[in-house]
């Protein structure tokens, strides 16, 4: 791994020893993880705890004729068997999704995807619970499934959602953005118009830890404690209160250590609700932990967009307009987790990093007999799809113009002086300076030398490709005026309390799933207060212990909660200044802050440390007039805008001409996420995201057969990459701070997942240029690459 700075390296960048503030310090949470002492949901063991298993539909579409649970109930270890009909009696058979649709907790009328929840068993152990599922006899009447998204709206297609009043087709929603007429005008005058069909197949986040929960309802005090694999504990608590009618103060949601989320743990799944029902009915704690196949076949998928991309340009490579028509497969229920006003997430940023004249998108979303979901896998609310579309279609344009793809991009970037830049679809990019980032990536890659090497190899019949992706993300949802999830605004609370001895606890609403929050947030508070990160405890993932906020997804933790942490620390510091002025016996305007202490202007020897002040705040003796004791503060931060990180990625691949196997030889990633808090954590997130991207580009896909059977139900069938498929990552960075974020930071968690797939695909397509290939769809398995070489690239669906 190589890291090269594109901006002046500040003193802290490579200083592990730095006692306070931003910088490359080791992660505070790692001592417990590397010792195997993390505590996950499945580690929760409560006295008398029972185990829950879910019976799932074996087929994609069928009417439930009858459910006979008598044999299961007779199993000696079974305590409870619940069917959809029983839930319906309690009004709990259906629940709202995060997109204002409804989803069955347990099917009552029909099953609508393979793997859908039909009944559950609660038993003394998980073996017995699983055994008893086989004793439940369900009679189904088979129905034709809707599998191909392209024919889902045919008048002859079976109607999946006949539970919705008056529903006569499989239409889910329509959505458009941009200006259709202006775009048409631009396309009409363009010298060159290029279009292509681009499919982003269905993929799955596949976190190492599957989803699960332990519900413990205490009938005496009426309190429900729910340990669950959730990226958004507060939002979940409020939704449980609204759906189940339980008083919110009697619900405690605990999200302990989480073994990867990637968006898979944003929705509320039927299993969580079943465990709550199980505990309510048995009076015992009930654990539900899904197995790998259940996770892959029934929980939130990602992508599944069939896109028509069009780009208009002048002959000399000035991009004029981008237009797209999208067919979106939402599965059986619209379970998309995105701000309410954005049914297609933030796909509207499909104009990318380019200054163009017009853009337009028309989208149609449909129901199919597949698992629900739709926003997951580190996608920044569909920016993955948007970036893939624009970066692929720009490369198609470069192909048609016979222009170097780096040169084409450089020619069309939004210029630094244009920021804040309002895109043609209405997004206000906060800051950016794209050319230096692009130039740095080319320098690190040795771009010109690579092109020369490629030329020589092509002459010898060898296949080498160089792929570029330049992305701009929009992360940190979001401003209350625009963004909410089911009516909950996307502002985040934060509390900071400094103890008398100068140690501190910061309480966050966001929940880490591996991002290193316990370190990053301690560093943010440390930078603002001078308290060493090791003296700052970060508390998160427990609704009884933390202020309200919307959770960790869409790269929002640092843009939103990170801002909250910085501002709450500044509030504490402001109070500390007043106390210090009393201690130093000078007016507050006469003292200066240097990290960790206040001193009298012009007299650095007259100073008090933050620790001195903390003791004074809690100690004996008078405080300045009007100052309360204690040293703590709280805040609720409402971001004024999203943050817009960007990056330039260059991928080099070699393809074996005989077997069509792709080897990713090199990958250079230059990221600009504004102010960098902990460079090591940023690099770790980038490494993970790049690996994700190689996986999606080369091997990952949740496929279905014509009957709607999921073909990706195990990790033998759904391939995720290993260390052997990825190169040594080469990373670099530039720093363009966000103007509105208090410390100038932008989100970065999903940048690499968003930015890397087009770089890999562009490299493979570039390698196949001698075969006349302009586009080939993911996943670029050897077979699919070979088919493209034969002149018959096949769409994956």
């Amino acid at each position, binding site marked *: 791994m190589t890291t090269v700075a594109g901006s002046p390296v500040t003193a802290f960048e490579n200083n592990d020893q730095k006692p306070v503030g931003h910088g490359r310090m080791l992660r505070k949470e790692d001592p417990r993880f590397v010792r195997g002492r993390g505590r996950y949901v499945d580690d929760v063991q409560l006295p008398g705890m029972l185990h829950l298993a879910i019976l799932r539909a074996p087929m994609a579409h069928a009417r439930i004729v009858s459910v006979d649970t008598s044999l299961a109930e007779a199993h000696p270890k079974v305590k409870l068997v619940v069917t959809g009909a029983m839930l319906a009696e309690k009004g709990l058979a259906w629940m709202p999704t995060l997109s204002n649709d409804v989803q069955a907790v347990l099917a009552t009328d029909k099953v609508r995807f393979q793997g859908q929840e039909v009944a559950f068993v609660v038993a003394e152990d*998980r073996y017995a619970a699983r055994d008893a599922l086989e004793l439940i006899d369900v009679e189904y009447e088979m129905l034709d499934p809707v599998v191909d998204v392209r024919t889902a709206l045919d008048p002859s297609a079976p109607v999946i959602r006949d539970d919705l009043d008056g529903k006569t087709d499989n239409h889910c929603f329509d959505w458009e953005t941009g200006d259709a007429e202006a775009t048409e005008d631009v396309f009409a005058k363009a010298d060159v118009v290029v279009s292509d069909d681009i499919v982003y197949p269905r993929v799955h986040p596949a976190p190492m830890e599957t989803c699960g929960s332990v519900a413990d309802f205490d009938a005496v005090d009426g309190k429900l404690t729910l340990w669950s694999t959730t990226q958004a504990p507060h939002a979940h608590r409020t939704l449980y209160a609204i759906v189940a009618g339980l008083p919110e103060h009697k619900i405690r949601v605990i999200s302990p250590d989480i073994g990867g989320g990637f968006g898979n743990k944003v929705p509320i799944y039927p299993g969580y609700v079943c465990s709550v029902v199980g505990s309510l009915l048995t009076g015992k704690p009930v654990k539900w*932990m899904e*197995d790998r196949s259940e996770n892959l076949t029934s929980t939130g998928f990602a992508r599944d967009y069939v896109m028509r991309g069009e780009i208009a340009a002048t002959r000399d490579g000035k991009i004029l307009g981008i237009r797209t028509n999208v067919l979106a497969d939402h599965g059986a229920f619209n379970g998309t987790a995105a701000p309410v006003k954005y049914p297609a997430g933030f796909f509207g940023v499909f104009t990318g990093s380019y200054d163009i004249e017009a853009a337009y998108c028309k989208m149609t979303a449909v129901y199919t007999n597949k698992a629900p979901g739709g926003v997951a896998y580190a996608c920044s609310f569909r920016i993955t799809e948007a970036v893939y579309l624009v970066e692929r279609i720009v490369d198609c344009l470069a192909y048609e113009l016979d222009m170097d793809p780096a040169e084409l991009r450089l020619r069309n970037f939004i210029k630094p002086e244009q920021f804040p830049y309002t895109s043609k679809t209405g997004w206000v990019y906060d800051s950016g300076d794209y050319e230096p980032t692009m130039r740095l990536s080319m320098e690190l890659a040795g771009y010109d030398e690579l092109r020369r090497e490629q030329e020589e190899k092509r002459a010898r019949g060898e296949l080498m490709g160089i792929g570029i992706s330049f992305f701009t993300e929009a992360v940190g949802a979001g401003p209350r005026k625009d963004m909410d999830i089911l009516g909950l605004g996307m502002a985040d609370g934060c509390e900071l309390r400094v103890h008398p001895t100068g140690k501190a606890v910061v309480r966050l609403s966001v929940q880490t799933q591996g991002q290193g929050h316990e370190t990053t947030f301690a560093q943010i508070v440390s930078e603002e207060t001078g308290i060493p990160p090791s003296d700052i405890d970060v508390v998160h993932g427990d609704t009884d212990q933390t202020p309200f906020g919307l959770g960790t997804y869409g790269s929002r933790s640092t843009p939103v909660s990170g801002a909250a942490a910085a501002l709450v620390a500044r509030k504490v510091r402001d109070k500390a200044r007043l106390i210090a002025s009393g201690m130093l016996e000078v007016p507050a305007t006469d003292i200066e802050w240097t990290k960790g202490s206040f001193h009298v202007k012009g007299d650095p020897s007259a100073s008090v440390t933050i620790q001195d002040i903390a003791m004074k705040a809690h100690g004996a003796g008078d405080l300045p007039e009007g100052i309360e004791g204690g040293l703590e503060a709280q805040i609720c931060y409402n971001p004024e805008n999203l943050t817009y990180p960007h990056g330039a990625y260059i991928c080099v691949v070699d393809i074996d001409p005989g077997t069509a*196997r792709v080897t990713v030889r090199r990958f250079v990633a230059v990221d600009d996420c504004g102010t960098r808090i902990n460079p090591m954590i940023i690099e770790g997130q980038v490494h993970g995201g790049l690996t994700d991207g190689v996986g999606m580009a080369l091997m990952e896909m949740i496929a279905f057969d014509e009957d709607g059977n999921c073909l990706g139900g195990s990790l*033998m069938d759904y391939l995720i*990459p290993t260390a*052997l498929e990825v190169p040594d990552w080469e990373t670099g960075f530039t720093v363009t701070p966000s103007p509105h974020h208090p410390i100038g930071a932008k989100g970065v968690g999903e940048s690499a997942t968003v930015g890397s797939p087009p770089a890999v695909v562009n490299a493979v397509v570039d390698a196949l240029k001698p075969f006349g290939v302009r586009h080939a769809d993911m996943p670029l*398995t*050897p077979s699919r690459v070979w088919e493209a070489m*034969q002149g018959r690239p096949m769409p994956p669906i």
Partner: protein
Amino acid sequence: MQVPAPFEYERAGSVDEAIGVLDRLGDTARLIAGGHSLLPMMKLRLANFEYLVDINDLADELGFIVFEPDRVRIGAMTRHRELLESAELARAFPIFQDAEKVIADPVVRNRGTLGGSLCQADPSEDLSAVCTTLGASCVIRGRDGERVVTMEEFHRGPYETAVGDAEILTEVRFPVHPSGSSAYEKVERRAGDWAVVSAGAAVWLEGGVISDARVGLAAVGPNTTGLPEISQTLRGATPSEEAYARAGDIAARSCDPASDHRGSAEYKRHLAKELTVRALRRSVARVNGEED
């Protein structure tokens, strides 16, 4: 966590004891060796057996690689890792090391066995292709003694072998002829995955002419297939790209691949040829001391 259905567990201390238990329990029982195919199938509840008979205590009795003048005998409980790490085996049959390097991952290779691999009879299984390529024969022991069958007889179809309910595969024998070598070529979608297609080749030279050659393919038909027509074509031929191409054409023509998520039938047919050519080329280079 995926959990299997209830089953009873017996642990055999000798081959005869294992055969006795199998004889008593009939087809409700299954031997478990490395368990890396059987246990996942049981956890997915694709396989449900009343009894598992654990033969890992037979690792000493059936774990061996014995080199004799005209043959190599390998015990059925010999683990992948032992096959991978035997330098003497690599000298006799380099194809073993080629194949073992691309079989699953170290965790599987530490436990999985030669016998288990053959008895699983998965059409995509690598060691079955290796044994086919090398013209191996299998020693099957029952109450009434031993019988020896060829690989063609051993594999009766996908997941189906000649081993009866009260029998155990104990040993696999490989004939040794002078001035030969071998190689294995595999295309997989990801490290550790099953083969999209793989091809093994073994070649013997005499005075610069091919005296015998064998090719075995995996994942392109109901079971790994030996290709006698290739042997006939190559015998007496001078090693050359033209000869390899002829053999490759026969491989492509003779196999019967199906389109699935690993690849299209056309691609697999192409690979059958491409990998046959590569494996033959590498085998000949090895005989001539030009590689490895």
